[in-house]
Structures are given as C-alpha cells and as structure tokens.
C-alpha cells in the first residue's frame, strides 16, 4: 500500500523512557498505516492521564478531553458524523474509575467506536495511586499500604456491558496489538481492547518481565474461536469468553475474546427512525439557506400545525 500519510506528529513524546505507552503508540500508528486511514476522517478521543496524551502524538484529528469522559465526547462526535472513524484511548483510571458509568453505557449502545484502554494498574499522571485494575493486596512502590480495593476485570465488564468485540493486547507485543486494533476498527459496533501496559515508574509489580512470563496468545489454541458465527451461538460464545476472562495470574491470555456482528449497531438502530441516517446526518444536513430557515412561514405552520389554532369568528 502506498503511504499517503505520515501518522506521527513531530511532537516530543513525553512519556517516561521504557513506558508501555510507546508500544501502544507504535501499534496504533502501524494499524492506521496499514488501514490507510484518512487523518482528516479519523479522530482519536482521549480522557486525561499519561495514556490520554496519545492524540497529540498521532497525526489524525485529536480530541483530548476530560478525565473519564472520552466516551461521551466520542459518542457525540460519532453520532453527529458517522462517517468518521472514532477511536477512544484512555487509562484504566479514566475508563474504569471515574468513567465506568460511560464505559457500561457504550456497551448498551453498540455504537461503532473502538475503545483502547491503557491498563497499567495505576493512576500514572497523578503519581501512582492504585487504579481500578490493580488487584487487592498488591503494594506497588508508590503505595504506602497494600491496595485495599479489588480489581475490576475489564474483559468481563466489557462483556457484561454488551461490547460486541472484546480483546486483550499487550503493549510490547506490537504486531499482535496492531492486528487487534485493525480488527477492532473494522468491526461494526462497540469494540474494546484491554491493553496490558507496563508503567515503568510506578508499577513495579506488573512489569514487562512479569508480563513476558505470564502472557500467552489465545490464537495459539487452534480450537479457540471467539467469533459468533450465527446468532444462536451468541450465548454460548459469551459464556466461553467470560470463562476465559477469569484467567489471570501466572497465565494471562491475550487475543480476541469475543466477536458478535449480529447485534445492530446504534447507527443502524437510528437508521430505523431517521431513515436517511447515516448518509444524511447532523454534520451534513442542511439547516439554513442564506442565513434563513429552510422552511417558509407556510411550511413552518404546516410542520407544527398541532400547535396552531385558527380563530373561528
């Protein structure tokens, strides 16, 4: 494929040397390259955190929003212009701490958005507090005492919430991760990738060494087929992937957990009500003609006739 666009900005990437985010950035850029995404039609939406700085390093549209709110921003962007490719990046604190409500809500909508979670077990940018994915009792070096809250299981939560593409990648398995990102972008519906991301500065438990030993690829098992191939299979495949999602510790699976293309996307659901959507949509529908309403007085009165009363003398 001819390389039309350069997907890296010239900005200095200010993550700590050795941070897993570099691996994710590489995979993202490579995936975009291979898909040949038009930068002006692609949007990365992020929250706040180390990970959420990523839009500035990628040469597609970037919207670096509020802590925990990337998903609702992305939703508005996508609904208003369904032709955009919209990818959310966020930290584990961002998406599953303050943003957990939105995370669940996106699953219920199956909007065609990709969510990539940089899972480092800590709140990086605020100096290493425990994030919602850090297991109970773990004491990383930035913590004064062992973690007192249990971890939430991102894969399980995504499955429970209704995401129709659910996968896990590892920051330093860049090719594997790139392929997951490509699949997620191509998937129609809400896609989630949990990316295990070593934080070199604050997380001395879930390190690159740890992951190197623990992870294995789901793909390596030829019998593993996460794709729902007919609607009736959905329940069984979901259960299988849930079972798989419970694996953690010595052996951590990466790869695709679940894919179901039989759930209508939100765009398709809207189409049933708004007929011409997504072709005609909020970003391109005509709303004025030369600074005037598109409706004449008469047309206005016709449209809102239910509210109009003609006096009968």
């Amino acid at each position: 494929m001819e390389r039309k666009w350069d997907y890296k900005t010239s900005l200095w990437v200010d993550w700590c040397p050795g941070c897993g985010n570099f691996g994710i950035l590489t995979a993202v850029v490579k995936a975009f390259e291979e898909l040949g995404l038009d930068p002006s039609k692609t949007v990365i939406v992020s929250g706040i955190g180390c990970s959420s700085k990523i839009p500035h390093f990628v040469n597609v549209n970037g919207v670096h929003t509020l802590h925990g709110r990337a998903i609702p921003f992305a939703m508005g962007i996508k609904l208003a212009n369904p032709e955009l490719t919209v990818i959310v990046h966020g930290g584990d604190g961002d998406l599953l701490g303050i943003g957990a409500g939105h995370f669940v809500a996106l699953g219920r909508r199956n909007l065609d958005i990709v969510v990539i979670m940089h899972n480092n077990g800590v709140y990086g940018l605020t100096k290493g507090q425990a994030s919602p994915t850090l297991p109970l009792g773990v004491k990383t070096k930035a913590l004064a005492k062992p973690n007192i809250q249990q971890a939430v299981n991102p894969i399980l939560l995504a499955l429970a919430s209704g995401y129709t593409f659910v996968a896990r990648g590892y920051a330093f398995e860049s090719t594997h991760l790139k392929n997951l990102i490509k699949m997620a972008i191509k998937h129609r519906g809400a896609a989630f990738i949990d990316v295990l991301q070593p934080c070199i500065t604050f997380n001395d438990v879930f390190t690159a060494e740890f992951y190197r030993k623990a992870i294995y690829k789901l793909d390596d098992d030829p019998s593993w087929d996460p794709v729902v191939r007919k609607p009736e299979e959905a329940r069984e495949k979901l259960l299988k992937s849930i079972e798989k999602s419970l694996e953690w510790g010595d052996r951590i699976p990466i790869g695709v957990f679940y894919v179901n293309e039989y759930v209508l996307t939100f765009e398709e659901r809207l189409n049933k009500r708004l007929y011409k959507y997504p072709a005609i949509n909020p970003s391109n529908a005509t709303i004025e003609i030369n600074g005037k309403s598109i409706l004449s007085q008469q047309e206005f009165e016709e449209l809102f006739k239910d509210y109009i009363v003609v006096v009968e003398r």
Partner: protein
Amino acid sequence: MFILKEIGIILGGPQGAGLETSMAILGRALTRKGYGVIADREYFSNITGRHSYIHMLISSTKLPRSLGYPVEILASIDAETVFTHFKDVAEKGVVIYDKNQLDKNIDNVPSMEDYTRERIKIILARLGVNPTIENIVSYLEKERNVVPIEIDFISIIRKITERFKIDPRQASRYVSGLIVSAISIVIGLEEKFVRYGFEQQFRERRHLIEHNMALYELVYDSIATFRNIVKVDAPRIALNKLMILTGNDAIAIAKIIAGVRYQSYYPITPAADESFTIEKYEYNEVNGKAVGPIVVMQTEDEIAAICSAIGASLSGARSSTATSGPGFDLMVEGISFAGANEVPVVITYYQRGGPSTGQPTRGSQSDLMNAVFAAHGEFARVVLSSGDHVEAFHDTVEAFNIAEKYQVPVIHLLDKFLANMIASVPVPDIDRVKIERGKIVFSRSNYKRFDLSNLISPRAYLGADNIVMWHSGDEHDEYGHIVEDPENRLKMYSKRIEKMKLVLEETPSDIKMGVYGDKNPDYIIVGWGSVKGVALDAIEMLGDRIKLCYINMKLLWPFPQKEFLEIVKDIPRDRIIAVEHSHGVNIASLIAMSTGITIDRKIAKFTGRPITLNEFIEAIEKIVYRNEKRMVLAYGA
C-alpha cells in the same frame, strides 16, 4: 355578575387525573374562539395522587401575560382542591364540585401534607367553618356570594361507561372531559368550540371525541341552569391565527427551526419535555425538504449529555442539551472544556426550586449566579434569559447564533414557570429567524484551530477535508497541542476571555434588554425571565398612580453595563426595585458588580409559586408608599 374582560380559573385535582389534558383542551377551545389564554400548572413531585392544579386566565382583549388572585371559577375534581383553594374564589365567583365529596372532612384527605392540613384547619377555625366540603361551600355561598355548582361525577361518568361499554376501571379517564365541559358551560363557550378542543386533543383516538361530547351533553343537562353564569366578553383580539403551547414546546420548536441536529438530555423536570417534543420531530419532510435528522440522545447522565453535545458540535452539528439545576451542576466541568476549546454549545437551563433536589416541580430563579459563575478558571460564556414564550422562541435561535459566531457555550436560562405554562401567542414570524453560523473553514493547509491572530478562531469541523486538528482541555498552542509556556498561556487565556467584548459590542440592544413603560418613571423595576409578564401588567395597572418602567434583562452575561447605566442614569438609586423568584434577588448583585449600582429595594419570592399580579402590585405600593425595602411574597397554594 358583570360582563368581564377577563376571568381567572383554578382547576384542581389529584395528579394523574388528567388536568393537563383539561388544560390543553380548554386552551385550544378558547383560543379557537379568539380568547387569549395563559395557564400555569402546579404539581407535586409525584405521579399519582398529590394535589395539582391549573391556574388559568382567559382574556377577551389581549394575550394575557400574568396570573392573579382571586379567581372567578374554582373547578374541583376532588375535596382537596376545595380545601386548598376556597379562599381564592372571588366574591360572586363560582365553585364547581363533586357532589360525592360533600361530607369529606379534611382529616380524611390523606394526600394532603400534614403541614398544609394544619395550616388550613387554622384558617377554617378562624372563619368558624367546620373542615368539610359541605361547610366550606355553604360558607362561600353565604359569606362570599359564591355560586355553588354541584355535579354528581360518579353518576355522570357511570352513564358514559355504560353507554359506550367502557371498562369501569377506565372511568377516571373521563374526569378531565367532565371538568372541561363544566367550565365551558359555566362560561357559555359554544359547543362547537368544545368539540374543537376534544377533536384536537383526541386526534389519534377518535372514539374519545364522541365519548367526551356525550359527556358534555350530560354535564350540560345536569347544570344547564348555570349556563353562562360567568359572563366573559366576546373576544376582540385582532389575531386570526395563534399558537398555543408550553414554554418547553416553544423552545423545542425554536431549536428545530434554528437547526439543532444533536440534542442530548438526561431526564429531569422541567426540561425533559423539551427533548420529547424535539424527538417527535426528529425527522420530517415538508414540501420535499428534509427537516432533520435530529439525533435526540438520552444519555446515561448529564455529564454525558454535555460532553456528547460538545462532541457533536466538534463534528459540526448545531448542538444543545437541556436540563435543570441538579443536572447543570454536573455539566459544569464539561462547560469549562467548551470554554477552553471554544466550542459552541447551547445549554437550555430551566430553573426549579433548589438547593439539591429541592422542589423539583416548582419554579425559581435562584440559579442566576450558578449559570454565570459555576466552573473553574475563567473563559467566555454567555447567559441569556427570556421573559415569555415569544422571546424564548427567538432567543433560542439567537443562543445558537451567539454560540457559533463567538464559539462559546451559551446558557439559555429559563425556569419552570415558563417551561410548563401554556400560552396563546402569535405565530412567530419565520422571516425574522436569522441563522448565523460564524466563520467556518472547510479546507485549508496548515490549519490552526486556535490561531492567535484574531479573537475569533477559524472553526473547522472534524472531518473537514485535508484538515487535521487537535483539541485539548489543557492549555494549548494554536494547533491545539498542550503547551505550558507562560507567554502562550497569557495570550491564549486572554484571547478566550476577551471574546466577551465582541459579544457586548455586536449583540443588538433588544437582545440585551427590553425597556417597557414610562419614559420618565418614578420608579424603575428591574427583573428578568418570568418576572416580565406580571411586571408589565403591574406597570400598566399602576400607571395612573405610579409611573413605572420595567427593564427586562435578557443578556445577563456578559452584563450590558453601558446600556443599563444609560437607562438608569437619571433615576435615584433608591427608586430602583429589583424583582426575582429567589431569596437573594441576585440580579441586584450582578448589577452591583457590573455597574457599581447598589439596589436595595427588592421583591423576592421563593415558595416555588409564580409571582401573582395582586401581590406584586401590593408589594410595589408598599415600597412606594410605605418605604418598605424588602418584600417577600408568598401567595398561592
């Protein structure tokens, strides 16, 4: 009874009994005949059973703007209504009540709050009236010359259910029609208008028209002697076509006309109805023109509502959300993002009683300071308010225009009174509607979203060909990339704030404020929003005794200091009176901080009920004649 130019009516009954339907039917029927109608709806935060009522004014000479007490007609569905409102019936007025309630004692009205019950019992005890309907009716008849009109609700409705073989469990559905019929008969509204009302209401369930007309006839027979006992003049309003709608609907329609294409909301009283109306019109074709599609999105909370609205705006949609106090509080951080990133978005903010859940179904204007000042950091925002349905319509369009021209969040600050009030108003002139989207860039190389060379940044939509841009809530450079450099900070921060100057310079003065009444007034009244109607009526009524002028503040922020000072320059400071539905009358604070003028004559009301004409006039008189400084109003159940 004389022939009246206007009459007031209270229709009361339990929540869920169909009063809203009665209001709609009666409103349309009266408008059809050519009357001007206005009606406030009061109800509890409850779905079924609590006391609710409609306070309506019908005018033969004008489109009414305010409500007052006493009322000529009290039409009650239940005993609680009579207990609650009997003291509001005018001398020689009419009380319509259900015969079956006659022996009801106030102690047997469980839906009434204890506090209210005790209060009313004391009033009745002072009057020497035993707390039953029978006694109250006879008190009204004897002491106040009120005409009692008794109807046997049960037997009339039974006749209908039997005649049309209606499941008796559906009987309660007919109460609204019964009360409409009774009122129509009492004021001599011709049958064809009543029918028109039913037809409009039950367009999609036509059998109900027939049922209700049959009901009308039964009621007619039952109270024929009282036909036209309340005499209202023939209408003489020179309009042949009117709209009759709530404030929520006026704004919903205005948003559609303004070109809203993304409306987000999380359900909340009294804002949700607006979104519901927009959703009804989410896609239409008129003469082959597509109106829409409008994506109306029920989000998981108000945070998602504002954030997704901002997102939609980034993609180029005219975008808005609607909420009330609790929801607005949750939107504040999002608004600060819009401010930081110069994103146009309209937040329609209907004030209700606060703080916290407060009085969710009652009105207030106590959120002015919240609308103007909530959010950390400084940035340009515009707060606009509207005094009535017609203003609200045009201001809604203006809100989008301002938002897009200056790339700022605009808060359209309204209240529950307006939201739920139905009014007959002239059909808006669509030619007056201007849609200004500001300067948009569709394609450009080396595009800088936050170009510093101009106060207004060149706006491009996400997805514009060959344009790549960044937005960040962090302080950023012209491209939208994070930059902490102090010099860039100084420029970028100033630029965003200084846009406010342009808003002040370029906004036409009628959007800033309206000035009504005497050119050389003795007193100037200052208020905003829902104070307008009652203020205008008051200055008219007091005109021969006290020369008054009313300033209807509309652009609340940035505060139009220059224009305000111009108007008040010749008036002594102690002859300015500020009015607000709040405790603090906070508009006075905003004026003090913006102009240095301290206003210490204040009229406040914060019971959640609207200021009525009678109490407002009284308050003005006390300030003028008795030199009172602070009047706290409390009329209304």
